[in-house]
């Protein structure tokens, strides 16, 4: 079974540039998450979807970040005008929706450096 696939693996930008990250979740998983993991910190939830609907995007810096999952499968996270503080690894994860417990399957992440 294929895991969660993310691309690109690495991105290096100048401040002010835009970048998009792509995620292909495990087939059949209805829930998809984007996490930001700064260096030497734990992952922090940015946004998550069930099918194509955004369930929670309260931690997404809405002025520069956007995320879509138009067909309820693949997803794209975009940073419109990157800042040095955005330097982090961006992790995508997927799962089946359950009420009592949650096991997430993570992709390898995209490591972003903003110079």
């Amino acid at each position: 079974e294929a895991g969660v696939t993310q691309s690109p693996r690495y991105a290096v930008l100048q401040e002010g540039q835009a970048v998009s990250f792509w995620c292909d979740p495990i087939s059949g998983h209805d829930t998809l998450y984007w996490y930001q993991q700064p260096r030497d910190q734990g992952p922090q939830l940015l946004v998550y979807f069930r099918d194509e609907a955004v369930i929670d995007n309260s931690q997404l810096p809405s002025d520069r970040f956007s995320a879509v999952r138009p067909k309820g499968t693949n997803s794209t996270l975009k940073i419109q005008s990157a800042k040095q503080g955005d330097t982090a690894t961006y992790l995508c994860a997927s799962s089946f929706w359950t009420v009592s417990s949650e096991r997430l399957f993570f992709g390898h992440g995209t490591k972003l450096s903003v110079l």
Partner: protein
Amino acid sequence: GDSVTQTEGLVTVTEGLPVKLNCTYQTTYLTIAFFWYVQYLNEAPQVLLKSSTDNKRTEHQGFHATLHKSSSSFHLQKSSAQLSDSALYYCALTYAQGLTFGLGTRVSVFP
């Protein structure tokens, strides 16, 4: 909101000796599940242990943890550390969807 506290940023241990990673939490929800995730260098985080039952020991790959709701803790232990255990370890909890992670503990095992 929920929070997870891991008090050690770095734990160094000699191969063959025991290792313990601390995890405490705060949550207002009753139905919750707890996880330990491990992240090896340049790899994605992956589940190591999971528990949602109070006072029940959970084991996997030589690691064990027991959820103690009375003390809001879910410490991770191993009786004999191996070189291959060197990694980042995250304690996390969930009550519905998504995970709240602690800051993580880096474990370095030396020969």
